[in-house]
């Protein structure tokens, strides 16, 4: 009974004769084979043309373009990196040169300053020596003047003291006495 309903169901569902092996496998229903094969061939042809004419070339182009872009970018990055390294080297070189030059300038300036300084010092020494000699001369003069003044004052004073005591001093005598005293 079960088998019979199966056959009926299958037949009703399949819409064709019960020779469709009923409870058996629809896979072995040969009457549907031409239909399936026909549509399969149509499907495969459509898929093949869609893939081989449109999809696969497009994807291949996209992948190639992407690979190109990536390699180009990497090359550009390498180039930039190389340039940066070059720039750094140039900078380092310029820095070293500048430092070297600065050192040379400093040394030169030092030498120049030293020579100028020496010259100035020598000139200053000369001037100082001249001034000192001049001063010494002046001092000697002043001292001489001072001695003369003292002598004069002493003579005058001695004459006046002698006169005050009521003596009449001989000028020559007083002068000789003062001179003797001042030597003593």
């Amino acid at each position, binding site marked *: 009974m079960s088998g019979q309903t199966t056959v009926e169901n299958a037949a009703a569902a*399949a819409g064709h004769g019960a020779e469709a092996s009923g409870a058996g496998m629809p896979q072995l229903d040969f009457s549907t084979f031409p239909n399936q094969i026909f549509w399969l061939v149509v499907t495969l042809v459509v898929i093949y043309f869609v893939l081989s004419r449109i999809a696969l070339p497009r994807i291949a182009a996209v992948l190639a373009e992407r690979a190109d872009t990536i390699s180009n970018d990497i090359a550009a990055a390498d180039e930039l990196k190389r340039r940066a390294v070059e720039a750094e080297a140039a900078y380092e070189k310029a820095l070293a040169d500048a430092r070297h030059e600065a050192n040379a300038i400093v040394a030169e300036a030092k030498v120049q300053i030293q020579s100028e300084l020496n010259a100035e010092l020598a000139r200053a020494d000369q001037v100082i020596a001249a001034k000192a000699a001049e001063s010494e001369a002046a001092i000697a003069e002043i001292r001489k003047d001072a001695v003369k003044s003292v002598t004069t004052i002493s003579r005058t004073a001695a004459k006046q003291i002698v006169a005050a005591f009521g003596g009449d001093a001989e000028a020559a005598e007083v002068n000789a006495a003062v001179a003797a005293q001042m030597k003593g």
Partner: protein
Amino acid sequence: MSEQATQEASGLVFHPLDQFIVKPLFGEGPIMWYTPTNVTLWMGIAVLCIIGLFVIGSRGRAIVPTRSQSIGELIYGFTYKMVEDVAGHDGVKFFPYVMTLFMFILFSNYLGLIPMSFATTSHIAVTAVLAAAVFLTVTIVGFVKNGTKFLGLFWVSSAPLALRPILAIIELISYFVRPVSHSIRLGGNIMAGHAVMKVFAGFAAVALISPLSVAAITAIYGLEILVAGIQAYVFAILTCVYLKDALHPGH
């Protein structure tokens, strides 16, 4: 108890193979070779899905791909590498051919897993045509490329001379069994999986065992998702292996 279950089962719709019946889409009547059937419908949906993924998905030709373009590129790269690795560098010109078979089987397998759908690859008529196409391609390419040297595939020159005729017979048989195993492996796997799910679905109507049945359907559905992918991959990679034999018949 068991009798009751049987009765219940027989009272239910319990025909695990009904899902494979080829029906006309419009009305009733005999199925002629041109009749639009559910086969046509589901193959058409497969074609649309393939177009959607590979043509519409990649329409932007973006350097930075969108999601669908990325999936398309992934499948493209995967298949391309498979063809190149297995069939060799000169096998790459068969890439669109392998891709066509792979994509058709992959999409049909997965579309067949949608409930109430129709699994076109569960039919031996379909898988046999696919396998026959591969077999014919391999044989024709083998003879065109290598001439009679292609027969060296059956003459194992590394074996002792006495064994060679015996090996030749074995190789010859295995060569002609290839399309059979190639087609039945795919069709059988898909059919068996769907039938098992339907059997468990029939048991789900029996209250006592329905939780078990639903759990089993879930588990088998998961397994079938795996099988759908693996069988498509196996079919494609075997195609590549056979193509390698055709291009380089030496062992």
